[in-house]
């Protein structure tokens, strides 16, 4: 479900497939396990994410809150049109930074 890569304390998480009510908890544990204590930011690349429901959004919200408490950055990039629509309808685009590409997300995080 995820593939990760670390570059100077910035963890890139490539998400693929579907995140729904049946696997959102596994997704949460996988991402939590991938984040190191000294990571300064997490970028989640959704290019290959085919589907997400409120169960998956709940996980993103929890990750965003934990990272903010640690003063670490959190950004999402490369949303497909239907997933962007889900983000907009839920208002998540107002609380989680969404970028066009991983390069934009990386530049914004600094």
């Amino acid at each position: 479900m995820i593939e990760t890569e670390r570059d100077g304390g910035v963890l890139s998480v490539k998400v693929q497939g579907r995140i729904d009510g049946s696997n959102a908890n596994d997704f949460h544990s996988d991402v939590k396990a991938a984040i190191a204590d000294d990571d300064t930011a997490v970028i989640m690349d959704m290019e290959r994410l085919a589907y997400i429901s409120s169960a998956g959004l709940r996980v993103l919200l929890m990750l965003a809150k934990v990272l903010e408490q640690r003063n670490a950055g959190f950004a999402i990039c490369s949303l497909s049109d239907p997933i962007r629509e889900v983000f907009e309808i839920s208002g998540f685009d107002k609380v989680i930074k969404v970028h066009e590409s991983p390069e934009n997300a990386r530049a914004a995080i600094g």
Partner: protein
Amino acid sequence: MTREITLKVGGSTAELERINAAVEELAETEGWPPDLVFQTTLVLEELEVNIMNYAFGEDENVQSQIVLRSEPDRLTIEISDGGKAFNPLEDATEPDLDASLEERKVGGLGIHFVRTLMDEVSYRRENGRNHLTLVKRRD
């Protein structure tokens, strides 16, 4: 073409995969655009998970029924269950879409998706069952 399918759904989230497969199969034979497949799957998941969580409590033997009727100009979805009376249109929490990250919660988002993505949504309680009817127009 018009095609109708009926699905009996149990009380576990493992059922979501079976629902998705049925939606995709119907979508393929009826030539739905990809966004309709996505929206239908999303709405069905949100409502079914609500039924699993609220209507029956801890009962593992939950059974609800989904009827999907695909017509050239519309898709009609009817979901019914024999759980306690629950009208998601009135009884579900309204999400606070303007809350800050710290205060933001996910409760009520599922019903918010249903209201936003579907064109008509109605609820009735009949013969001890909850019935939710949704219409998505294809125009």
